[in-house]
């Protein structure tokens, strides 16, 4: 689909098909077209050409059918200031068709997920931006949607709130949900997303798994960060760990973290972990480095608006 405003092309032939149960990170600089695409999917704006289909239903001409199992959070919505979170979320629950008998629990569960229980019956008008954003996140979770369209869900949240949003997204992945999430925070995307789509000047640059994207645009070299339970001897890193098949370099980041560059895909990543465990390396965590995604991002997106 495409979207133009006069002579400005906000989206240019965006062709993206996402299916299954996973989290897809939607990355791009300011003005790249991320929010424009999400707005078309939620019928807040119309595509100049093409269609946005959700479960085969056109988001514009068949909006009600298209969005019936979709939770959305676009930009930073405001809630009628005189309503309480309970009332505002009950309104959305009613609109989304949550049965009357389940409504109260659905609202309270959603509010509990964003840790706003004690504010449930206070008027929204007195809330901070971060508190409103939490309620907005809660509204997207109502009626247990099978798809979530989230536009920078961590915007306006404090570090704890951002962490909680990541936890929510991870838990949704565990419940076989499809999450399409735009974000500026590369570490967040690297942490929670399985796949990544990058967009710039309205054009889709790449859409693939996180590992493939980093491998493809980093000369087949990926990076993982290994958290350690106990410090290891630097000579052990150079003498043993860096000799594991597939590893290009292994370097100590600090006392309890090692950064490993390796050549290969997910299989190599798994075998390296297995070999390290055989060497009795006290691995506490093992995950793709956000900096690898950052390298790809900066390489692909040379210019921003």
């Amino acid at each position, binding site marked *: 689909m495409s979207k133009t405003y006069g002579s400005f092309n906000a989206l240019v032939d965006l062709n993206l*098909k*996402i*299916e299954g*149960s996973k989290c897809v990170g939607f990355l791009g600089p300011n003005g790249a077209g991320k929010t*424009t695409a999400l*707005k078309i*999917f*939620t*019928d*807040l*704006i*119309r595509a100049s050409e093409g269609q946005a*289909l*959700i*479960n*085969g239903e056109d988001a514009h001409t068949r*909006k*009600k*059918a*298209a*969005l*019936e*199992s*979709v939770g*959305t959070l*676009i*930009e*930073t*919505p*405001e*809630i*009628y200031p*005189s*309503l309480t979170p309970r*009332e*505002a979320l009950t*309104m*959305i629950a*009613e*609109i*989304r*068709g949550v049965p009357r008998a389940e409504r109260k629990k659905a609202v309270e569960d959603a509010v509990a997920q964003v840790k706003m229980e004690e504010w449930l019956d206070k*008027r929204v008008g007195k809330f901070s931006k971060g508190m409103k954003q939490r309620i*907005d996140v809660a*509204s997207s979770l109502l*009626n247990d949607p*099978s*798809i979530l*369209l989230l536009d920078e869900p961590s915007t306006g949240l404090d570090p704890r709130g951002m962490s909680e949003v990541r936890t929510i997204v991870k838990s949704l992945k565990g419940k076989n*949900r*499809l999450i*399409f999430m735009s974000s500026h925070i590369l570490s967040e995307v690297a942490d929670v997303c399985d796949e990544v789509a990058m967009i710039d000047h309205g054009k889709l640059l790449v859409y693939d798994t996180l590992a493939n994207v980093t491998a493809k645009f980093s000369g087949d070299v990926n990076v993982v960060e290994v958290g350690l339970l106990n410090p290891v001897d630097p000579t052990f890193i150079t003498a043993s760990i860096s000799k594991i098949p597939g590893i290009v370099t292994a370097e100590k980041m600090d006392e309890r973290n090692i950064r490993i560059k390796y050549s290969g895909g997910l299989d190599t990543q798994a075998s390296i972990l297995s070999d390290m465990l055989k060497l009795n390396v006290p691995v506490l965590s093992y995950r793709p480095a956000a900096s690898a995604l950052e390298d790809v991002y900066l390489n692909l997106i040379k210019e921003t608006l």
Partner: protein
Amino acid sequence: MTSDSRGTASTFAQLGTVTKYSFLNYLRARRFLVMVLIVSIINLALTAAVAYTRSAAFLDSTPLGFYGAWWGSFIDISILLTVVFFGGDAISGEFQNKTGYFLAPNPVRRSTLYVGKYLAAFIASTLILVLFLAFTLANGLYYGMGVPTQFAESFLFAWLYLLTALGVTFMFSSLFKTTSISILITVLLFLFVFTVIDELSTILLKIEPWFSITYAEGIIANILTVPFPLHYVAAITSGPGARFSFPTYNATVPEGLEIMAVYLIVCSLLGLLIFERKEFN
């Protein structure tokens, strides 16, 4: 994008939901209290003035004269204030204040949101109209005035005018994304533009302003006049070497109702169409 799907609420149920919560929002908003205060102040001031002056215009006339002086003289400005308060930014506010971003990206038609908000504004405005009615009736009954059937008709005409004026206001509100502009346009339109058009049409062009809603709302007060004012009156003034004619038009009841009905239908459809096509950007 594909995944599992499940049902959603019916359009009728969604309409009830949007109306209910929009009305709750109106009721709790400061502007509702302000509107109650304005109508109360107008009526309390009238009550005090009539009690103190024992004005013949109110007390030495028939019940129709009393209600015409009280209700007929002040209800139109009260309705105007009410529609500006409850409709002026009803739709534009959804864009400017971003409350539309909370409601619109849900499985609900935009027309449902529009009509729901419209009904909520109409119910809230009706409460203000009823408050005015209560003050009027209380004073009328206190002074021993019976309630003529024409007063009931006048109330119904006022109610229809309220519905129509809200339709016009909602249409202008959906045209703009800035609340102050949509409110200003509504005020200018009802206070000046329609009035000026009425005058220009009648005095200069000497044609009946059948296209003006403020012309149509004249039936609210005129129904309280017996006999009902003539449809066309030409006042002729003669001077040395000159003879001037000042025509006056009064909408008949069927004509007034027709004009209001046309405004209601056209403005509601146009407002809906504009809101359906408007983009949140």
